[in-house]
């Protein structure tokens, strides 16, 4: 089954290009630029993984992780970031983020991580 991915970043040109590349690699991707839209989507629809920027307008990255996990504790979260301090990385992991990928990301490394994350959560659920 294809991985259902919600891709969130406030840079429209980034999400659109990355989503197209992920789709070409067999993933079902919804690309959005608004954190509040992401929370709404996660409430209403089912996703295996959210790949999201760590620093965006509207909501702090750590707050977003807490809220996403509150809505769907099984949702896997992969963070995209320019840079993150070690403290932020540890805090993000402690709040439930699965992995962190530095921008600019290598698409094959990222899709591998998404697949492994999805497989791991499937194994735990069944």
């Amino acid at each position, binding site marked *: 089954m294809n991985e259902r991915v919600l891709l969130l970043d406030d840079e429209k040109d980034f999400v659109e290009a990355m989503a197209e590349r992920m789709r070409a690699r067999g993933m079902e991707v919804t690309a959005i630029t608004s954190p509040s839209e992401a929370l709404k989507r996660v409430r209403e629809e089912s996703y295996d993984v959210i790949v999201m920027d760590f620093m965006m307008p509207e909501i702090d990255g750590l707050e977003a992780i807490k809220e996403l996990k509150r809505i769907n504790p099984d949702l896997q979260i992969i963070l995209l970031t*320019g840079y993150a301090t070690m403290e932020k990385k540890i805090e993000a992991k402690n709040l439930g983020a699965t992995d962190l990928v530095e921008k600019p990301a290598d698409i094959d490394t990222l899709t591998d991580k998404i697949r492994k994350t999805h497989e791991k959560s499937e194994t735990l659920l069944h």
Partner: protein
Amino acid sequence: MNDSLDVREETALRFFGNISTSISHEIKNVLAIINENAGLLEDYNLMAEKGIPLNPERIKTLAETVMTQIRRADGLVKNMNKFAHSVDEASKTVDLREILELVVALSSRFAAIRGVGLELQPSSSAVSILSSPFFLENLIWLVLDFAMNATGNGKIVGLFAEKKEDGARVIFTQLDALGKAQKDEFPTEREKSLLHILNAEISLDHRAGQIFIDLPTEITL
């Protein structure tokens, strides 16, 4: 070394660090967009090798996106260069309008993350003073940071500079929640250390939702 000097040094270092971090984040974002668009071109090339025809319009759009991002990065690097040069001379004649323009450009990411718009209002003539460019930028940046928490529902900070008989004034406007924002002491020790070196004064008009920085025509460092 007295206490006030320590605060000023720490304030200045923190300012330099915050601006450098912000610019490097922005450049990373630009690189990420270029990376994805270059990756798409690579994907299309692989598809073309398998016989799937290229769509010229799509290629044109990707090229335009890359060029837009290169212009964006160029703007970021130019501002970074201007900012780095502000420490070249302890004091010099500056046009306050240009200082405001630079601080607004350097603050745009911080403002965007907080959902605040910055509106730089034009001044009709040059507002020249002899001052310390770096400490001036630092003070305006700190006041702007405070002002962004005082916008209320409007989520806009207006800024402009004007000439006065005995110097110049920077005015922050549209701060509808100024009274609510000032729960703690303001100006803090950080702003006070910069006001001291710039021989400047800050005043707040809660009713009008405005903050003023009054600067002398010249200072000697």
